[in-house]
């Protein structure tokens, strides 16, 4: 064995043994004496191979089933519950607004106008539920994409994810958007933009006016 190539350790994994066998095969195919640089290069290659093998084992040993079967479904359930609770609260507020509108009709005059103005402001504010619901929907979609990607990577480097699926676990769902036809409307459906990222109503009005 040339200098710089370590012998296989007694505790080498099958993967490491396979890499070493490959390195030995390369060495065996070389004719003549190796230069010190070539030997060092081969030693580096072998070390790199062992590092990759260890990384693959570590990825394969990740508890991906915890992620795909517990963590992400739990997170998405919690987010769904948030949407449900805010919808319920918003409906309660809207019930109160409708009652106030009834009161305004009965009292009349300036008090009625004041009540109507306040109720209108509450209606405007309640549209938060739509915006937050859409934002949470974007987070859920992102979580599902992460779930699918983690399962793909782990399945590529080990049998853990495959074993979980074989034991009856549901494979991660495909992204929702993939199930619907790709129309222009769907392609351009980005959801709410972060503050400052979208155009304002004034910008939109100007843009529309430019078309006329």
């Amino acid at each position, binding site marked *: 064995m040339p200098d710089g190539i370590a012998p296989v350790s007694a505790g080498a994994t099958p993967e490491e043994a396979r890499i070493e066998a490959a390195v030995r095969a390369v060495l065996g195919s070389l004719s003549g004496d190796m230069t010190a640089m070539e030997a060092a290069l081969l030693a580096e290659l072998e070390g790199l191979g062992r590092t990759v093998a260890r990384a693959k084992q570590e990825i394969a040993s990740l508890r991906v089933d915890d992620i795909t079967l517990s963590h992400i479904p739990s997170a998405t359930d919690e987010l769904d519950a948030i949407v449900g609770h805010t*919808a319920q609260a*918003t*409906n309660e507020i*809207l019930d109160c*607004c*409708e009652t106030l*509108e009834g009161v305004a009709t009965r009292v009349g005059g300036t008090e009625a106008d004041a009540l*109507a103005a306040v109720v*209108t402001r509450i*209606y*405007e504010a*309640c*549209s*938060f*539920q*739509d*915006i937050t*619901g*859409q934002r949470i929907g974007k987070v859920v979609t992102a979580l599902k994409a992460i779930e699918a990607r983690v399962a793909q990577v782990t399945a590529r480097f080990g049998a853990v994810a495959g074993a979980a699926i074989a034991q009856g676990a549901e494979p991660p769902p495909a992204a*929702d958007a993939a199930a*619907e*036809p790709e*129309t*222009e*409307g*769907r392609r*351009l*459906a*980005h*959801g*709410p*933009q972060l503050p400052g*990222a*979208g*155009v*304002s*109503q004034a*910008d*939109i009005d100007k*843009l*529309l006016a430019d*078309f006329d």
Partner: protein
Amino acid sequence: MPMDKNTSVLIVDDYKTMLRIIRNLLKQLDFENVEEATDGTEALAKMRAGNFGLVISDWNMAPMTGLDLLKEVRADARLKSTPFIMITAESKTENVVAAKQAGVSNYIVKPFNAETLREKIEKVMAHA
């Protein structure tokens, strides 16, 4: 030109609370003849079965989006001249341009206020 408060209005949104908010704001503007749909497919069926003078639609709905509904409406010989206002959280320039190219009558970005809604309805009804 004053708004015709007898106009039948179809509001389309997949959020029930949003439908309720828009319905109540329309009621404040004295529009009493209001129907609802929760996506473009349901809205198109209602439009083909009914006679609406104004559509107020969200964009991001499934299975049919508001933009796809707008295209269907503009391609339908009977429905094509119906005033169509998009009320949506989609606030990218490309969305506004796509909606305009598809024939939207006006475009309101969420969150919006009652005055903006009144102003846009008045404007599109004046051109109807």
